[in-house]
């Protein structure tokens, strides 16, 4: 599996794309493949203050429930309503149509680059 080089990655298998003060969050193709078909997603409401490393929502596949862990701290400014009504987009397009929410970043988070994440994901049992 290859991971887009322009994104940053968390140990909880979320990705973050940033432009200065704002970020967009999703889950990686590795996470999506491990979870299986995603059937429900619960996203933080706009205006919620999220904290890096803390749960801010839920992702349910047919067999399991996982916390959505924010890869960065800040205030949620937008959520992807399309993915709420069609969670399968997370499987089919994890880095594009399957994005989850956007936030105004408190600070620049310390995350992995694609090469580091590739090694990390390959070592995850």
């Amino acid at each position, binding site marked *: 599996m290859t991971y887009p080089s322009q994104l940053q990655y968390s140990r909880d298998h979320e990705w973050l794309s940033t432009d200065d003060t704002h970020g967009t969050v999703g889950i990686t193709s590795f996470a999506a*493949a491990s979870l*299986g*078909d995603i*059937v*429900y997603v*619960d996203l933080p409401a706009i205006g919620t203050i999220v904290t890096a490393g803390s749960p801010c929502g*839920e992702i*349910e596949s*047919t*067999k399991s*429930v996982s916390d959505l862990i924010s890869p960065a701290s800040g205030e949620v400014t937008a959520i992807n309503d399309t993915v709420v009504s069609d969670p*399968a987009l997370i*499987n089919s397009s994890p880095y594009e149509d399957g994005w989850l929410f956007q936030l105004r970043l408190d600070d620049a988070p310390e995350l992995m680059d694609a090469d580091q994440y590739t090694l990390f994901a390959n070592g995850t049992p």
Partner: protein
Amino acid sequence: MPPADSQEPRRTALAGVHQSLGAHMTDFAGWYMPLRYDSELAEHHAVRTVAGLFDLSHMGEIEIVGTQAAEYLDYALVGSYGAMAPLAAKYTMICQDDGGILDDLIVYRLRADHFLVVANAGNRETVFTALRQRSAGWDDISILDNSDLWSLIAVQGPLALAILNEMADSPLDSLKHYSIAQRSIAGFPVLAARTGYTGEDGFELFCSPADAAQLWTTILEKGKPEGLVPAGLACRDSLRLEAGMPLYGNELSLDLTPFEAGLGRVVALDKSRDSVGGDALRERSQDDVSRVRVGLELEGKRSARTGYAVLTPSGTSVGQVTSGALSPTLGVAVAMAYVDRESASVGTPLLVDVRGVLVPARIVPLPFYKRTNRGAS
């Protein structure tokens, strides 16, 4: 006994085939099994609309042979087997003395003096040991764990019949629901049973492990143009849930009798002879059970999962969820649960504690899904 996870999971004759198909594999009941090949939802829908191909070789096959085989099974299991015609099949159970369920089974009568008992993979040893012990004092009864001599491939779905007919030495139409017959499929000898665990018409093919990979590959190649797909255990679970079928370990356990499970019909109360658990089951059949298995439909798209509490609208706990999912076919969250009898009638409004959120639910009849094309019956 060492803990199960200290051993490598066992591989079926098809393990290599699953890996070459890119399956996500999982350890299930000590077996290395395909969870899904690609999308478990796509596999689920394929079984409902076309057909799916399953490896069930992990199931236990125990054979009972002897002139008194039917009488022995009347003693050892909860049902009555003497009246089964040769080549008939029966869904049944094995219970312990107190009526607690050891496993649910399908019993096939291959000949007057030869039965095939199919047990869940996780209960294979338990069932075999119990059957052996219960045969003490029975002359001329052989009980053989032949699980390693059989592979089991299921083809399930509305097109299963048509797909297999193209490869069968003689049409399978004549095979009635819940019966078994010798056939040749793609040139390989099989015992073809019209049984399954998906709620669809379909077949379970018992074959030699030496033939399994080639039989599987041939069925997959012939069925692919029609839309048949390999299907894993993940969709098997959602399919059986929609069909209201219990899973041992979830809906069935040693702490429950067939009556709590709503499956009292498997118990023959009028047996002419005594049987293991017979007294306890007769007694249990007399009184109203306090908890029963029910179907629940939840509001919203969140799944009720195993162990979640079921409450009355006023907040009194009345039961627990045993299986749940967002039904792929129906698009609603469904669950099976055990609830107090007073709260078990269809239409009763209840709540399910979904990780701290009380989600409204109501009791609905089982099964959640019933196929419209009945096939042969």
